[in-house]
C-alpha cells in the first residue's frame, strides 16, 4: 500500500514543519499544531427538500446525529460531520472508504457525494490559546457558547477557503485546500509564535 504524501511533510527549507517546540515556548506551550490525516473527507450535498434524508443517511453510515441548525455538527473522535452551507455537509473518517459507504445511501434522488480525501488537508489546533490564534485569522466568534463543540463554519483567510470544526473545548480542526495547506500552516505557526507552539 502506497502511503499518501502530506503537503506538510518536512521539506528541507521549512523549519516550521518539523515536530517540536517553536516560538516563545520557553514561557510555555499554549498551542499544539498537528495534521490529523483522515483517510476520508467527503462532501455531501442534498437537493432542496432532501436535507433530512441526507442527514438520516449520514446517521446511518457514521452513527453521528446532526443537531438542527446552520453549521451544526458532531464528532466522536473518529468520525466527524458538520454542515458548512445550506444542505451541504463535510463528513470525515479516520478510515478509508467512506465514499463507498455512502455510495448506496446517498442516492441520486437525495444528492451527491464528492470525494475530497486528497483535496483537503486537516490541520488541528489545540490548546488554551487556540481561540486566540484563530482570532488573528478569521472574523468568527470562537467562544464556546457561540461556537459549540461539533459545530462547523465556512470562512476565508486571505485567499484560503477554510472549513473549521470545533472538536473539543480548546480544539479546532481546519480543512483547507491541499495546495494552500503549507502556506496556511506557516501562517498558523507564525501567528502562534508569541504563545509558544508545538508541532506534533
Amino acid at each position, binding site marked *: *500500500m*502506497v502511503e*499518501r*504524501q*502530506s*503537503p506538510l*511533510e518536512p*521539506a528541507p527549507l521549512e523549519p516550521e514543519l518539523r515536530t517540536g517546540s517553536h*516560538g*516563545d515556548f*520557553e*514561557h510555555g506551550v499554549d498551542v499544539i499544531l498537528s495534521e490529523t490525516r483522515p483517510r476520508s473527507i467527503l*462532501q455531501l*450535498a442534498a*437537493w432542496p427538500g432532501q436535507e433530512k434524508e441526507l442527514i438520516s443517511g449520514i446517521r446511518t453510515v457514521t452513527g453521528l446525529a446532526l443537531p438542527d441548525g446552520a453549521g451544526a455538527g458532531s464528532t466522536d473522535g473518529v468520525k466527524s460531520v458538520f454542515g458548512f452551507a445550506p444542505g451541504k455537509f463535510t463528513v470525515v473518517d479516520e478510515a478509508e472508504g467512506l465514499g463507498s459507504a455512502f455510495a448506496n445511501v446517498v442516492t*441520486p434522488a437525495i*444528492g*451527491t457525494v*464528492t*470525494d*475530497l*480525501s*486528497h*483535496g*483537503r488537508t486537516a490541520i488541528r489546533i489545540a490548546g488554551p490559546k487556540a481561540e486566540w490564534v484563530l*482570532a*488573528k485569522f*478569521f*472574523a*468568527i*466568534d470562537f*467562544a464556546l457558547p*457561540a461556537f459549540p463543540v461539533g459545530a462547523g463554519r465556512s470562512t476565508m483567510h*486571505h*485567499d*484560503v477557503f477554510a472549513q473549521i470544526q470545533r472538536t473539543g473545548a480548546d480544539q479546532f480542526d481546519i480543512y483547507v*485546500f*491541499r*495546495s*494552500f495547506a*503549507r*502556506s*496556511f500552516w506557516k*501562517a498558523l505557526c*507564525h*501567528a*502562534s*509564535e*508569541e*504563545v509558544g507552539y508545538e508541532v506534533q
Partner: protein
Amino acid sequence: MSPRRTDSGGLIDRLRTIRFTFDGAPYTGHAGDTLASALLANGVTLFGRSFKYHRPRGVLTSGVEEPNALVTVLRDEVREPNIAATMVEIYDGLTAVSQNRFPSLAWDVSAANQFGGRLLSAGFYYKTFMGPAIGPLKSTRFWMFCEHFIRRAAGLGRAGTAADTARYERMNAFCGVLVVGSGPAGLMAARAAADQGARVILSELEPRFGGSANWSGETIDGMPGADWAARAAGQLEGYDNVRLLPRTTVWGYYDGNVLAALERVTDHKERPGKGEPRHRYWVIRAKSVVLATGSFERPLVFPGNDRPGVMLAHAAERYTNEYGVLPGHRIALFTNNDSAYRSALALKKAGAAIVAIVDVRPELSSEMRELADEAEAKILSGHAVVATEGGKALSGIKVQRFDMANGALAGDARSIQADCLLMSGGWSPTIHLASQAGAKAEWNAARQAFLPPKPTQMWPTQQWIGAGAFTGSFSTAEAIAEGRAAGLSAAGGTGTPAALPVVEAAPGDPDPAPVFEIRADGKSFVDFQHDVTAEDVRLAHREGFISVEHLKRYTTLGMATDQGKSSNIPGLAIMAEALGKPIPEVGTTRFRPPFSAVSIGSLAAERFGDLRPERLTPMHDWHVANGATMYSAGLWHRPMIYGLSGETIEQAYVREARATRESAGIVDVSTLGKIAVQGPDAAEFLDRVYTNMFSTLAVGKARYGLMLREDGLAFDDGTTWRLGEQDFLMTTTTANAGKVMQHLEYFLDVIWPELKVHVTSVTDEWAGAAIGGPKARAILAACVTGTAVDNAALPFMGIVHGKISGVPVMICRLSFSGEMAFEVYSGAGYGTHVWEALIEAGKPFGLVTYGLEALGTMRIEKGHVTGAEIDGRTTARDLHLDWMLSKKKPFIGSAMMDREGLIAPGRLELVGLISLDNQPLNGGAHIVEALDEANPHDSIGHITACCYSPALGRYIALALVKDGKARRGTRAHISDPLRNRFGPVEIVSNQFFDPDGSRMHG
C-alpha cells in the same frame, strides 16, 4: 534627585530607575513615567518647535491630546515621528529626538518665521499657490519655486526610510459589551455588565486603568482613587468573561457596532518578546458599546499662551499626583471655571507655591475661595492673563482687569513672577466615537460644550450608551452612577438598586464662564499644533471662509494629530463671535476616524511582507529538488524550466520542447482548474454553459469546450470529462478556475435554481501530469497496469482507469502540446509517487521534464489560445473558434455574440507572426504597417505570446491583429519603442506547426 521630582507620591516605581536619551542627552526616570513626565522631572521645559513659526514649545497636556510635545522615537534603524511625549512610556535605552528644528532645539534658525507673521497667516499655502499675476514666477510656477523651501521649513517629524521590521497583527474580537475608557465610569460599567454575565471588553488607551481616579486626588470608597481603580481593575481581571485591553485606543466606530482599536503591545518594552507583535489592530464586533471616554480640558486663548511652562491645569495635577512631578515651583493659574482650584490645591500640597489664581469671573463661590485659601493662593477674580514672559521657559505673566460681559480689558497690566502657568478653559466631552457613529452633537449652553445626543437620536445599528464626563457629567460621583447604569443597560439587565461607591471630592460647579479668548496684542494660539492663531480664524472669516468645514481647511485648524481635541471649541467660539452668531448655529465638524494616529503597519497587519498565500502542487518539492526554476502563476508556484548548468532560459526551454517533440516530455498540470459537475441535470447544465454540446458526450470520453460570457465575448476553455452519466469533471485554465466556479455557482443559484446540479472545486483532489511526445504511449504502456493504452482502448479524447506503481490513476488522451499526449490524474497524495514512476518508466525513452516556458512554446507553435488571447475583449470568431458555436441550442452568450460590433470588420483577430530579422519578439509589442521609429503610430495589433520555436527554428509569436486572417502572408513591423525593438515580421496562420494534427492523432 531630579529638580522637579516630588519627594513622595505618584504611581511611579521609584525603586526602578530607567535610562533614556532625548536629543542625545542622557536622562533618568522611573518605571511608570512617560517621556513627558520624566523630562519634566529633569527640569526640561522645551520639547519641540511649532509647525509654522518654529516657536519654542513645552508640554501642554498629559495625554493623547498633546499638540506640542511631539517627538521622534528611534528604534534601531527605524524612526517613528510625531509621537506625543505624553504617550511614550520610557524604557531602558529609549532614544527620542525633538522635531522640526535646525540645527538644534534650543537654537532653531527658522524661529525667525514668527516675525513674518502676516506672511505666514491662514491660507498661506493657497495664496502662495496662486502666485503673482505677472513675471517669470507667475501662477503655479511660484509655488513650484517655493515648495522646496516650504517643505523643508514646515511640518512635523521626518519619516524614516528604513524598512519597518516590527510585526503587526490583526485580532477579531466579539463581545456583548465593549466599554471604551476605564475611568470610574468605565470601570463601573464593565463591572456591572460583567456581573450580568455579558462578555465584556474594557479598553483603556493609557497603560493604567482608572482614568482620572489615578490623579484626581479624590477618595472613592474610603481609599485613594488610584487604589480604588487598581482594585476594581484587579477584580475585573479575575472574571472569565472580561478581557482587559490596556494601551488600546479605540479609534474608529463603524456601522453595525464594529469598532477598530489599536493596542500598543510592545512600544513600552526594550525588546518585544518572541513572536510578539508591536501593535495589534483589533476589530471588535460588539452587541452594545459603553462610551466612557471622558473629556478634554480646553486651553484658553490669550497672547503667549504657547510659551513653554504654560500647561493645562489638570495636566499639572496629573503630573503631580500620578507621576510625582511638579511642573513648576511658582505656579499661577488662569481659569474660567472651578476645576482649576482643585489643581491648585494638589500642587500646593505637593510643595509648589501658588502665586495667583487669575479667574475671568468677577464672582466666585465661597467653596472656591476656601480652596484658594487652602492653597495659599491669591485670587484675582475678574482678571485675565494678557501676556506671558520669558524665552524658552516661562518667567512671568501679565494680568489685567477683564470684563467677561464684553471682553474688555481695563487698568494697567501688572506682572507676576511664575515659572508655570496653568490654564483651564472648561471641558469638552470626548465625543469623537459617537460623532463617528453618526450622532449629531448638541450644544449645551451651561457646560459650554458639545454633548452627545440623547439616545433617541442614535442610529438603530449603532447602539452605544454614554457614561460619565463623556455625557457632560463631570463629577466622579455622577460618573460612577452613570457608569453602573450604562453597564447594566448595555448588558440588557435591569439590576437591583445597589449602594454605589462613595466619593469624597472637592466641590465645584461644572459650568464654566463663556470666555474662550482674551483679545490683547500678540499671538494667541487656538491650534497649537498648526500654529493657528485667533487672528487667523478672524482672517478666514474676513476672507469668506465662514463655514466650520471651510474654516478647518483654510486655516488647518484641528488637523493632524490634534483632530480638534484641544482646539475645536475655542476655534468655533472665535468664529461664532466674528459672525455674531451663537456657537450652535456655527456648528461643529463631524469627527472622523481615526481618533488618534494609527500605524499603517497595523492596518496591513500580517499581510505586510506576506501579501499572498502560495499554492503548491503535490509535486512541488520534487520540482525544487530536481532543479526547477519556479515562478508564480497567480497564486500557484510552477516550474518555469528545469535548467541544466550554464543554460540560459531560452536554451533550457528550447531543449525541453525539442526533446518532447522528438521523444517525450512530462509537465505538471495539477494547477488546471477542476470542477466536479454532478447531478441529474449536469449534462443539460453543461449544454447551457458551453458553446458546444456535452449531453451527447459518451461516458468515458472527454470533449474540448468553450465558454462565453453573457455579453458574448469568450470567457474560458478547457476539456470536460464524462466520468459517469451524472458525473462530469470539468477542467478550466489555471488562471480562470475561480472565476469559472463563481460563474457556474451564479447560474445555478440565481438563474437556474431548478437544475439539480452541484459544482465542487476538486482542483486540489487530483495531481495531474501531462506526458506527450512520440514516445508517450510507450512510456505509459511500460508503467500502467489494469488497462491497455493503445489506440483502441484509449483513442483521442478517451478516458481509461488503471494503476501506476500500485496507485489508481485516470488517464485521458488529450493534447495541448500538439503531440500524442495523455493527462494522468491520481489522488493528490499520490502525485509525487506517480510522477516519479512515470519519470522512471520514461528514462529508456529519453523522457524530459518540462516547465511552463516549454509548455508555452509548444502551445504557441500549435496556435492554441490561453488567457493572453481570451483577454475579455476577443470573441470566439476572433480566435477562430467559431466552429465550436453550436447552432442547435442556446448557450450563455449566444444571444449577444452576434452583436454588430462583435462581427464587424476591423476586429483584432488571432494570427501568427514570424520574426524576419531573426531577433526575439516581445509580448505586448505593437504591430504596424509602416515603421516610424521616431513617431510610432497606427498600431494594427499587438503580440500576446512569443518564443523561439525549435520546431520552426524561428522567433515566432501569436498576435491579435486587425483583420488578421485577411493579412496572412503579408508583412508588417514590430514597433516597441519602450524596449527599442523594431523589425519586420510576416503575418501567418496561428497554427504554425502540424496544422492537421497528425502528430496528436497518431
